């Protein structure tokens, strides 16, 4: 029996003396879209930061494909095939969109210092990376903007580029932190289609998202976090009816149940 793709067990995280996440345990199986939801301040981004190595949990363990990744650096975790996107728009602003894609394909190349001085040895690799970059940009519909400076893109385009950067090196698990934040309905629909395509391509997705309509439609499973701990874990239909989830949402954030039926 294979271990789950991602196993988070009894993780506790403190930030500046405060317990941000008290006891977090959940799993992500291969091929699913799993959403991590919860009211503001529930600890979702903190959990993401811990899984991807930007924060070190005080207690507990995180395993990726059966290998312990607790406390590894973000770059090591990325190299293992676990990549995240960021809640705030995160791109390489003063480079072109195409160069952004090339930079994000770092893990798909191998050329080192010596290779820099032997151009012929890397020509093949460079060509392959360029092709992959174009494919990736086509995938998110930014091929036409390949030559533009990344910070000159419209907001929605920047968000898509951010997802493209995270997905570029074809990670096995992709963590998306509010990919639809600030998008209009048609852009949100595009974003959803993009996530489905990524899943169909074989990338497992762990999603943090506030747009409940989107979460309910796209997720295979939903994990609900409130005040640093998990209060529900199951398929969308079960979550929608879960009394504790409804109470948590009605008690705080306005986005909750009202949109859930959409």
């Amino acid at each position, binding site marked *: 029996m294979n271990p789950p793709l991602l196993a988070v067990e009894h993780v506790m995280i403190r930030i500046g003396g405060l317990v941000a996440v008290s006891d977090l345990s959940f799993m992500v199986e291969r091929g699913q879209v799993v959403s991590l939801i919860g009211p503001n301040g529930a600890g979702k981004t903190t959990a993401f930061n811990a899984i991807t190595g*930007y924060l070190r949990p005080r207690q507990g363990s995180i395993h990726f494909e059966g290998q312990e990744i607790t406390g590894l650096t973000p770059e090591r975790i990325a190299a293992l095939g676990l990549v995240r996107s960021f809640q705030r728009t995160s791109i390489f602003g003063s480079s072109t969109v195409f160069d952004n894609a090339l930079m994000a394909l770092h893990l798909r190349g191998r050329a080192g210092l010596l290779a820099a001085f032997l151009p012929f040895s890397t020509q093949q690799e460079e060509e392959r990376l360029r092709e992959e970059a174009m494919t990736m940009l086509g995938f998110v519909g930014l091929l036409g903007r390949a030559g533009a400076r990344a910070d000159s893109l419209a907001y929605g385009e920047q968000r898509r580029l951010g997802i493209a950067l995270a997905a570029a090196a074809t990670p096995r698990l992709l963590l998306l932190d509010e990919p639809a934040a600030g998008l209009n309905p048609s852009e949100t629909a595009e974003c959803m289609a993009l996530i489905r395509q990524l899943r169909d391509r074989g990338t497992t997705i762990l999603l943090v998202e506030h747009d409940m309509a989107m979460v309910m439609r796209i997720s295979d499973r939903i994990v609900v976090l409130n005040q640093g701990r998990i209060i529900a874990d199951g398929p969308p239909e079960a979550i929608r009816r879960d009394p504790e989830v409804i109470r948590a949402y009605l008690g705080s954030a306005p986005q909750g149940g009202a949109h859930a039926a959409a």
Partner: protein
Amino acid sequence: MQQALQHLVNGTILGGTYALLGIGLTLIFGVMRVVNFTHGELYAFGAYMAYGLVALLRLDFYLSLLLATLLGTALGAAIELLLLRPLRRADIDSVMLAMIGAALVLQNANMWAWGGVAKLVPSPFAGTPLVFGPVSVMPLRLFVLGISCALLVGFWLLLERTRAGIAMRATFQDAETASLMGVRVGWVSTATFAIGSGLAAAAGALLGPVFMVSPTMGDLVGLKAFAIVILGGLGNLPGAVIGGFALGYVEEFGGGFLSTEYRDAFGFLLIILVLAVRPQGLVALKERVG
């Protein structure tokens, strides 16, 4: 043992002025996020002003020290208004480069105005040491220590007890919130830079009669100020005082027991060691990810 006691006393005296240097630098970094490369040059400026007023204009010694400090404060205010204010929105590297440019201008202006020959500020104190048991101290050095401590206490009172001090501390903690609360951050910055510069000039004016005054001394002193501040943690006020005394002792004991030639190098080696071994303990600012 006797020797150790003597080093302890010398280290304390040196440490007092180092603390003055460090506290100004760390205050400026804390409030303004500016790495002030002109700090050492303001020290040199203070020393030269003291020399000019005492030796050339033949003013009263104590009055000269006061005037030198005030002139340093005014120069600091001018640098802030002319240089830092226009660069308020620039990134930290640009500001650092501009400050290095300013330091270069100040240092060479000193060189031009005063020539390369080192000067000694004449002082009214007796040249014979006071002897306390195993330890002997020059009266001038005791005076320096006394004034340094008085300035440190005065500075602490300013921060704790005055409106300006409260505004500074608020900006120190969170400039954005402070400005929302009605603190005029622009003027707080000017005042901060002026006071920090004044403390550096005071340190220079105080040590001018003890050591020689030379145009390039600002380089070394500036670096020592950084050493002090890093020892105590950049932006940490009590840390700067501790760091100042720590550097004073390290130099005094290192110079006394290990090697006189490398006396000045101990501080830098200490910085490199501290930064290499415990950088996480010193970096006070955390960044949010995501």
